[in-house]
């Protein structure tokens, strides 16, 4: 099982990554423009009433500033971690819901990293990579391993659920009825966040539809099998290659980029900790590559 021997350093890297991602996302959030939108536009979530109440220029700016400071403190590993991360995670949740509540659907790109920001405050994620020089108290190793295993499980389950739904809802026809080309063309023409127009090439070169569909089929199979990446080290690398390739291909072909997920994949499923400079000053705990 992945993270069977992980420790404080690995959880700390996840902490820094998750709160760092949120710092980047929230930094761009234009609270002034948001608060000028008509209140009726804010209605996609059960918390819409709370969001509407918060959506005044001054209040929303204060909430955003508090969330950014909180994220920064969490990245730095300030303790007591639960006291900092708990309120910060609630602020992050509120602001992310605010951003989602004016759309016609919830963008899934931030879902995983939101679930993890809600999980981390319950665990001692600032026991390593912290600005504090005093050592953390002795704790059960499970306090570091369980959140990592749970985080990895949530990540693989999300991919597996998508693949399973495509298999059972889409069946065979989803690969054979031209849907893939329509999705690629529509998502390219529609305004996305990354301005890629490569996808329209499938109209100039219709034969590209074949590798597109085959790629989707392979991706679906690998998505379904995602939970095996928790326990099969060799499959894990295949899985990483396919999923990372899938995310990069959607960037160029559909102007959709789940960069947050790529960061989580690197942190949770690669021996990243062994490659970092501070690795030499901490006990070796990452044994993913040799774990059965």
């Amino acid at each position, binding site marked *: 099982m992945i993270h069977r021997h992980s420790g404080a350093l690995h959880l700390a890297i996840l902490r820094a990554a998750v709160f760092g991602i949120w710092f980047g996302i929230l930094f761009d959030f234009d609270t002034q423009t948001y608060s000028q939108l008509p209140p009726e536009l804010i209605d996609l979530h059960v918390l819409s009433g709370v969001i509407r109440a918060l959506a005044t220029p001054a209040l929303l700016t204060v909430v955003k500033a508090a969330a950014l400071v909180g994220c920064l403190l969490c990245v730095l590993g300030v303790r007591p971690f639960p006291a900092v991360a708990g309120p910060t995670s609630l602020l992050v949740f509120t602001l992310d819901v605010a951003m989602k509540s004016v759309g016609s659907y919830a*963008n899934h790109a931030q879902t995983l990293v939101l679930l993890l920001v809600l999980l981390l405050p319950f665990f001692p994620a600032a026991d390593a990579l912290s600005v504090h020089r005093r050592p953390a108290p002795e704790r059960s190793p499970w306090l570091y391993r369980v959140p990592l295993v749970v985080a990895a499980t949530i990540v693989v*389950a999300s991919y597996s*659920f998508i693949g399973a739904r495509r298999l059972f809802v889409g*069946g065979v026809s989803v690969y054979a009825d031209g849907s893939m080309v329509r999705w690629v063309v529509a998502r390219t023409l529609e305004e996305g966040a990354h301005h890629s127009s490569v996808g329209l090439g499938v109209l100039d070169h219709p034969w590209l539809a074949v590798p597109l569909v085959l790629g989707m089929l392979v991706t679906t199979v690998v998505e379904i099998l995602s939970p095996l990446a928790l326990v099969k080290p060799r499959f894990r690398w295949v899985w990483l290659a396919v999923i990372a390739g899938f995310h990069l291909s959607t960037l160029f072909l559909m102007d959709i980029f789940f960069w947050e997920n790529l960061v989580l994949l690197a942190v949770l499923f690669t021996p990243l900790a062994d490659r970092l400079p501070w690795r030499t000053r901490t006990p070796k705990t990452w044994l993913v590559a040799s774990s059965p």
Partner: protein
Amino acid sequence: MRTWLLGVAVLFAVRLVGDFVPLMDATGWLWTTRMAELWLVGGLVAVAWRDMPLADMAAGIGRMRLGAVIFLLAATTAGQFVGPGSSAYPFVHWDMYTAGASQVSYGEVWLVDEAEERRRLLLAGSDVTTEPRALSGRLLQEAEAAAAGDDTAIRVLRESIRVLADGAGSAGRAEVLRCVVDEPTAAQPSRCDVVATVALGEP
């Protein structure tokens, strides 16, 4: 393991036959496919967690943390299984690009000035959401309601576009287009029609 694999095979066979034979109604299919998803994914996760020392893990983290972990896992699974929609975000179902589409539609907003010069309103720059498509889709929904005579939708659409266009500048009106991709060609990748037009200068 054999039982689980047999279940997967049977459920997939039912799904394949269902493409050709009307085995059940829409509600029946909905719950059959969701049970199949849960059986497939749940089985794989169970295989992955088979050798985990669950008792040691639970004892090692304590009751409160265990409760938080169970809640998070259960809510994530329930979100997928029940499919409550965006209102329950982040506990929502993951169903992107899972069903075939004979056509895909999306919205565009164009600003038109007095000289009939047109420019597309680019929503990515507004930074009020992480996904401009969700916002353009929402404006299209409002435009469809406005076209049906909903006064509130007309006002919401006008005010939203004014804000997102940073005051709209010299634009006198905005047009919301519904674009459809069904049989795309290089010459005509999509077809777009105006759904609603709103005057930006009116109070």
